[in-house]
């Protein structure tokens, strides 16, 4: 049976009137302290991570300063390191991914939230969740063996012939490149857009839809002109979330992007991304400056995803609370 020293919930955490030792004999206090240690570990690990990233890139930061962000040259030969080609590659591939994934994803989310009967919606969502669980390297596998040849045989000729005069579509094409990476990334981030958008759409109060319908709008009009705008902050949040995921993607990108630090307007040009160059060069970076430049890239990536994730969260919370009538 319980010890004589049971505390009632209303007693709350021990007050100062009991000595520490006597509090310790209380099983609850031990439990509290133990679990607190573990919770504190989480915070400590996070702090340590940021600290390690910061100090292990000190040399590079001292030498290059903000020039790091605008220098194009990445040459271990002369110990000159600029992040620009990798930031460019990361951003271009992610933006391309969003251009493809956002319309598809929102469309699918609208279908799941507004049209599909609940059971079908749940079943389809189940499959979408499974899609989100597919690991990056498997997407890379498919990218290398399906999308790269497709790019070379179908997509490039299809786009280059009619539109080759535009700088975006200039050849030559190697199969690998920005667009290929963008397509693979798009497939990877669609599930995030769909799940979150579906949830925020579902949280839009029913009376909004009914009001629109009562005023004579068609189903589509009520959806597109009333429900979606109501949820738009949350949908934007889902896009930020997808973007954050795309930015950090390593394996699938490195297998199809071409691994060349190039800045080019052409979508078919090979390039490189921050995550990809770290994966390729980290184990061979001889010399402290080289290694610290790579860690510096890691720090940049970390900051980018950190900011985006934070924004995403705020946007999603604001929308769902708005929908349920809870004051933010």
């Amino acid at each position: 049976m319980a010890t004589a020293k049971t505390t009632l919930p209303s007693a709350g955490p021990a007050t100062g009137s009991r000595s520490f030792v006597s509090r310790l004999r209380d099983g609850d206090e031990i439990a509290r302290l133990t679990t607190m240690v573990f919770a504190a570990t989480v915070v400590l690990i996070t702090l340590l991570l940021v600290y390690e990233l910061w100090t292990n890139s000190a040399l590079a930061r001292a030498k290059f300063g903000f020039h790091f962000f605008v220098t194009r040259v990445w040459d271990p030969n002369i110990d000159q390191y600029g992040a620009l080609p990798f930031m460019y590659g990361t951003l271009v591939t992610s933006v391309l991914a969003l251009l493809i994934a956002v319309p598809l994803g929102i469309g699918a989310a609208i279908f799941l939230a507004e049209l599909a009967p609940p059971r079908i919606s749940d079943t389809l969502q189940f499959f979408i969740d499974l899609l989100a669980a597919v690991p990056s390297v498997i997407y890379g596998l498919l990218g290398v063996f399906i999308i790269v040849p497709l790019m070379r045989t179908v997509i490039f000729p299809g786009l280059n012939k009619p539109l080759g005069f535009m700088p975006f579509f200039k050849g030559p094409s190697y199969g690998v490149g920005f667009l290929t990476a963008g397509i693979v990334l798009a497939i990877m981030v669609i599930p995030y857009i769909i799940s979150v958008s579906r949830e925020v759409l579902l949280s839009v109060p029913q009376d909004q839809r009914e009001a629109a319908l009562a005023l004579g709008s068609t189903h589509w009009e009520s959806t597109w002109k009333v429900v979606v705008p109501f949820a738009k902050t949350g949908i934007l949040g889902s896009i930020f979330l997808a973007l954050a995921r795309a930015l950090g993607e390593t394996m699938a990108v490195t297998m199809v992007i071409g691994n060349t630090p190039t800045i080019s307007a052409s979508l078919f040009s090979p390039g490189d991304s921050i995550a990809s160059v770290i994966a390729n060069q980290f184990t061979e970076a001889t010399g402290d400056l080289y290694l610290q430049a790579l860690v510096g890239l890691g720090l940049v990536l970390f900051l980018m995803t950190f900011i985006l994730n934070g924004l995403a969260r705020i946007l999603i919370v604001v929308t769902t609370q708005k929908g349920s009538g809870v004051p933010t």
Partner: protein
Amino acid sequence: MKRIAVLVVGVLALGAIVWAGQNPLLINGAGASFPNPIYSKWFDEYHKKNANIQFNYQSVGSGAGIKQVTDGTVDFGATDGPMNDEQLKAFQDKRGYGILHFPTVLGAAVPTYNVPGVTGALNFTSDALAGIFLGKITKWNDPAIAGANKGVNLPANDIVVVHRSDGSGTTYIWTDYLSKISDEWKSKVGKNTSVNWPVGLGGKGNEGVTGLIKQTPNSIGYVELIYAAQNSIPYGAVKNSSGNFVKADLVSVSAAAAGAAKDMPDDFRVSITNAPGKTAYPISSFTWLLVPAKIQDAAKRDAIKGFVKWMLADGQNYAEGLSYAKLPKEVIEKEKKAINNIQ
């Protein structure tokens, strides 16, 4: 269900603990992909003869090999670009003792390509190769290439250059050659395991480059001979310093090493690209094992010394089957003595 889960976890844990109890000696190495086919064969054969010793070699590129052995995260490294004085000093400063180079085999970096309609060996002059990799020669039917290949139907397609994306000894060999035959290359790009390529796609390891070339029409890249041979992709002949177009094979690679064999420096670091000799293949190279001069663990030290001894004797017999040339006799003798430098 919970009980079954606990049981499964318990069995697995037990198995893992039992595993940890058995202990063949595991020696970790990393480095060049250039000799990976023969190293993996050697380590496999050596393990068959010495069941309690395992050499785990990861083909991650010469650059990574040099770094990992300097950091001490692997027991030995491997590279086809010898460590330069700066890297040697860095090792000495970090560890307090030096590092030794041991040549293992001779190999060749060959220009390999995937040109629609071309199945045979193309002839490449040194100017052609420099021009292609500098990005100045952009089409396959450029006169610089066509001039040496009369009778071959070269298409007017854009050349896709493929190079290494990781730090590579094969890159070192290739750029070492290009620096010798092209002043423009020397001043613009230079020679190193990792350079700022003017053009091209990056593939990881010899394996990655071969893979890219196989899949990309109109591509050209540089790989170790065995990779082209094993994957049945055509590779070209290169014009050597005597003016002859020579294809890489055991004879031409050995010819390139003949001169260096007699004058081998004590630390075995030597370049044999663009070697003199009528039959020499101009882009040949030794490849080296990197062994720290001092190894604390006696078992590991003996195992490594034993392997090097075996490699210089029986191991050499496997080389030719995989298209690597054997080491010249003088070099083998010199190395046998140098083994004693491993403390």
